């Protein structure tokens, strides 16, 4: 690895974006590497489809390229890119999503966690996989806005203020959405061993 590539790894997203604005395409490549998985994951759990998540993530990056000139250092890059992400997902979801019924508590999600190495039953890894599946199912049943806020927080690692900026709302609304999500998810995991362990 070159010294230059190592340098790229250490700089902040904002600096990389400014470098890209100045024509450094390698900076953009680094940003794509950093955010590909996060955007794809949020899209996947939000829409419940790998194909749609892939398109959503790609569209987001394409829009980042188009709007690169408008980025300024006054905003966090993470907040900015998820703002673009939110805009695209909102526009594409002007009609109710194909997979989820936003208001249904009993919707059947297809956004299971990715299949990893099969763990032997009764092992901790196996229990974790079951728990993740249960959480994913419960997340998929949340109303769209609540689900999005939860995923931006837990998977996207945004602060609540960044979420408010990204989705264009105020902090109290974000608090309310997240509280709704956590209260509902709590109900579905209270009987698990992991929850009991976390309480200790």
């Amino acid at each position, binding site marked *: 690895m070159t010294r230059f590539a190592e340098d790229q790894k250490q700089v902040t997203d904002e600096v990389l974006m400014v470098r890209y604005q100045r024509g450094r395409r390698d900076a953009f490549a680094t940003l794509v590497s950093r955010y590909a998985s996060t955007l794809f994951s949020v899209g996947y759990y939000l829409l419940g489809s790998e194909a749609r998540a892939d398109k959503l993530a790609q569209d987001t990056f394409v829009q980042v390229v188009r709007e690169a000139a408008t980025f300024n250092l006054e905003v966090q890059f993470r907040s900015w890119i998820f703002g673009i992400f939110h805009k695209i997902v909102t526009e594409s979801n002007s009609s109710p999503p194909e997979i989820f019924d936003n208001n249904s508590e009993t919707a059947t999600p297809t956004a299971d966690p990715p299949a990893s190495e099969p763990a032997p039953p009764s092992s901790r890894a196996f229990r974790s996989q079951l728990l993740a599946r249960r959480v994913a199912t419960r997340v998929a049943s949340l109303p769209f806005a609540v689900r999005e806020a939860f995923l931006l927080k837990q998977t996207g690692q945004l602060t609540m203020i960044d979420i408010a900026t990204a989705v264009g709302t105020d902090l109290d609304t974000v608090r309310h959405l997240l509280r709704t999500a956590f209260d509902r998810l*709590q109900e579905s995991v209270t009987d698990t061993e992991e929850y009991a362990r976390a309480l200790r």
Partner: protein
Amino acid sequence: MDCETFERVVLDRVFLELDELTMGSAQRHVAHCSRCRTIEVGLRATRDVCRLPHVAPMEGFVDCVLTQERQIRSVLPLRQRLNRAVSMLASYAMRPQSTMAALLLLMIGASLFLVRTRPGDRDLVQVTERGVPEVDQESSVNKEGTAPSAMNIGFADSGSNAPLDDAQGLEELEHARSVRANSGCFAALELLETIRRKYLTSDVGLAATWDAAECYTSLERKAEARALFELLVGTHKYAKRAKAQLAASDTR
């Protein structure tokens, strides 16, 4: 802090997004409020348990995005390309070495533009006793090179602005003038007369005539002075002054 306020900020506290002051206030509240403590503990546990694993994008995702990026940038509108070029140039311009080089070039350019000609390259300017450039007043030259005559002593070329071209004559005139300045009119008169005759039709000749006439006046040799002033009345440059001198001599 009361329970209502605590409930409002409990998620901020769970995600460590509270400012120090409110964090301390919330800490004091949960220390004596078991209900709020239970809520907070439950939310923390939910936060830890409900973490969804990251999903890796499909293979070739990054390459696909970069390919699209290349395509978009190849068809960027002119304005954006211009902005990008300006931005790149500006990033180079901000480097100290580039700035210094630009300053150096600017200084060299400015010095070439504003460089002054050497003193030797300039036209010689003679100044009369009154501080007026002599060349301006006495630059008429007999272009046709007409033969000298008593009444046509360079008079035919009156009004000509041709510069003095007889460097030798000028030199001689300067010498005569310096003799006049140092030793007086008597000593200079002979030199002035010689120059007057020698360069009769040129500016030098006219200037020598004028000087000789002045010398005659100062030596009280009025007849000779008058004769020379009358000659100069026929010239364009000296006519006015010569007439004034003649008028003055008539009144004396």
